[in-house]
């Protein structure tokens, strides 16, 4: 057995360290370390509740809108305020823009460049990966940056700017949309769709979202050369490397549900752990047995949670707390979201290989296609001239929670208000779930479990398989600890 430390990881948002115990060319055990603490939950105590809308987007530059929306929902919950239809549609569009920008950024800038590493020189597909996906030099990065920038024009239009907008309010959005802006939003969505169809998928989106089994996906992939589209290119490399055997999870998936419209969410909330189950928000808890935190005994529901850092806690190894649902570790993200929602392709892929590196990437790209199609419908449903934002009074004493889906998974905010000020504010971010440390029973978090068994090649210092697994979650470390 030998112990090694891998880090800093780049092409994840924020700083990350992974400690590995290895033997016989494999990872035997893993500890995930979130090495930075800023203290947003402490900063928010005592502030006016609406100040949270300024602070929380700045937890994270990549999930900024998601953080903002979770806060707006939590405050709306405390106010008992609902959004008008236009507010709901505009909010969905703004969140979807961020989520898809993140999926795109993850695939092209964070995940794929690892296949252009020297470690893979000699693979028959290497020259293609090098030319297309190499960090900074590859053709894809140069092509995608302008596409991403233009896609984010939707946020300029609907939310003023990105990141760190104040447009998402408890009662809707602060920017009403006129006819001409609705037209422009639809045009921007069309332009992005064209990129997805021509470059990412090499097929129309309707055909992509209709893929309903692993076999259907495999025969779709074979229908054109691997380098005819970036998705096929990925499927080809993934097949060659056996990414469906890498990073196998415990297959307990959770989603808070995404994109509500008139009482229903486009992707439903729930749990999948061998079968569908409803989500009980009361079953969520966080504990700190292996965190550099103190003054909290045992697991607590976030309404009762405490955040007090302490760098000298025996047995602790990360600033991250350990969230659990009914005491269990959960995996969150696009794969979990589509699994819980029941997309047939994802259900079949997971039935065959569970949560793994391949399936996490496929789910993210499939979801991009699903959401773009939906965005087009939302834009058409906006009614210029009707309200976008309702007003509510802030109660002196109340509590509320905002549970939403960010690109990388389930994000929850829990706020308690007393004498008109924030008494307690607790946040559980997607990567807090995925990159959780061990709990009091010694059960490792999702990534810690998944890394066990990862192969290590002779002479590798920072094992490339470990990097694929880590990045397959699209981790956001600045959200994780906040």
């Amino acid at each position, binding site marked *: 057995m030998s112990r090694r430390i891998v880090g800093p990881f780049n092409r994840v948002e924020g700083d990350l360290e992974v400690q590995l115990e290895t033997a016989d060319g494999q990872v035997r055990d893993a500890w995930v370390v979130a090495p930075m603490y800023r203290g947003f939950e*402490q900063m928010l105590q005592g502030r006016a509740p609406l100040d949270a809308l300024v602070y929380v987007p700045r937890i*994270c530059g990549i999930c900024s809108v998601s953080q903002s929306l979770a806060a707006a929902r939590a405050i709306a919950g405390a106010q008992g305020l609902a959004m008008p239809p236009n507010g709901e549609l505009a909010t969905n569009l703004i969140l979807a823009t961020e989520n898809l920008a993140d999926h795109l950024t993850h695939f092209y800038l964070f995940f794929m460049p690892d296949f252009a590493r020297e470690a893979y020189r000699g693979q028959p597909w290497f020259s293609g990966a090098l030319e297309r996906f190499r960090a900074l030099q590859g053709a894809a990065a140069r092509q995608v940056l302008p596409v991403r920038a233009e896609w984010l024009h939707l946020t*300029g239009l609907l939310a003023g*700017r990105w990141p760190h907008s104040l447009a998402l309010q408890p009662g809707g959005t602060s920017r009403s949309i006129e006819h001409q802006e609705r037209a422009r939003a639809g045009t921007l969505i069309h332009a992005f769709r064209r990129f997805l169809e021509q470059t990412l998928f090499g097929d129309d989106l309707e055909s992509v979202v209709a893929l309903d089994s692993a076999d259907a996906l495999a025969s779709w992939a074979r229908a054109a050369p691997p380098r005819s589209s970036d998705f096929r290119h990925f499927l080809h490399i993934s097949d060659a490397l056996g990414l469906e055997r890498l990073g196998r999870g415990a297959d307990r998936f959770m989603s808070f549900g995404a994109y509500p419209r008139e009482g229903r969410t486009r992707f439903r909330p729930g749990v999948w752990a061998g079968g569908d189950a409803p989500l009980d928000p009361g079953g969520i808890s966080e504990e700190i047995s292996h965190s550099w935190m103190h003054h909290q005994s045992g697991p607590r529901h976030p309404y009762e949670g405490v955040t007090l850092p302490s760098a000298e806690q025996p047995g602790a190894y990360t600033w991250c707390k350990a969230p659990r649902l009914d005491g269990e570790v959960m995996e969150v993200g696009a794969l979990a979201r589509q699994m819980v929602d029941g997309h047939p392709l994802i259900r079949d892929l997971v039935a065959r290989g569970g949560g793994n590196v391949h399936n996490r990437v496929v789910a993210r790209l499939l979801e991009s296609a699903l959401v773009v199609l939906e965005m087009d419908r939302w834009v058409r449903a906006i009614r210029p001239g009707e309200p976008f934002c309702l007003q509510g009074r802030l109660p002196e004493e109340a509590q509320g929670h905002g549970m939403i889906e960010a690109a990388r998974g389930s994000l929850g905010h829990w706020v308690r208000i007393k004498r008109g000020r924030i008494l307690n504010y607790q946040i559980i971010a997607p990567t807090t779930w995925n990159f959780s440390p061990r709990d009091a029973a010694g059960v490792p978090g999702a990534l810690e479990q998944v890394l066990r068994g990862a192969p290590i090649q002779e002479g590798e210092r920072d094992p490339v398989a470990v990097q694929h697994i880590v990045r397959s979650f699209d981790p956001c470390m*600045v959200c994780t600890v906040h």
Partner: protein
Amino acid sequence: MEKKESMKLLWLQSGGCGGCSLSLLGAESPDLLTTLDAAGIELLWHPALSERCGGDLLGLLQSILDGAVRLDLLCLEGAVVRGPNGSGLFHVLAGSGRPMRDWIGALAARARQVVAVGSCAAFGGISAGGGNPGDVCGLQYEGARRGGLLGGSYLGPGGLPVINIAGCPTHPDWVCETLVQIARGDLGSERLDEFNRPRSYADHLVHHGCPRNEFYEFKASAVNPSELGCLMEHMGCLGTQARADCNIRLWNGGGSCLRGGYACINCTQPGFEEPGHPFTETPKIAGIPVGLPTDMPKAWFVALASLAKAATPERLRDNARADHIRVTPGKRAP
């Protein structure tokens, strides 16, 4: 054409959100990679863009410290983290066991020019808010006070202090244009303002080019989010004091905070994170906003405001409280 040697840029992140980088990736006309090419800037490493990871990166940092690799430009995004109790343990650079603060200090000593990207790296920013639990500071400022990690009197080998591209986040152009000017050697100290922000954007006020200017002129004000009126009187807008060109340059293809329907919170200013009142409420004394427009005499403002209020056209009074244009120019309210 003579081939100039490239400028080597290292980009590090600490106590912040990464939002300035994510904003920068949205640079347009041209895109970021083309801008760097044009300026002859070589990215030694950037957290979101580079291949290098783990030991390879630590090796690069060490070779900079050893002098084997030249460092022309060091960009820091995020505040310098000093807590808890001065230990720096709130951010230990992964894989190194060493506080990030110490890495930043050591690398800055090797850099020809140090650049703070965003208000956190410049002044502390949001990361210093709410009692500053992380005990963070900027590279050369702690809020509006000179000091910070490198000290108030720090000057780099090129003769300049830390250049503070303040903003939360920074506009991609602010960063791109500053880097290009540095690379061309035409960014002298006279191009920096009193907080060492590039004057290229800090010589303006957010008020300049605000689409709500007519409402401002007549003090026709919004009261709730999504209304079209001026946000200064009730909604906490600091655009008449904030130093930035957000309504001239525009964000993400045509937006700005004001165009998005919400107040300017003066995010380029040291200490913006603690305004002393709720961000989206205007503090007033005897009905008059406490913070007056920059350079405007108070008596004049008060006189002008009351005169303007008395003369407010019906169109503006009506539209200010609506979320879309109800009364068009030249028409009376229905």
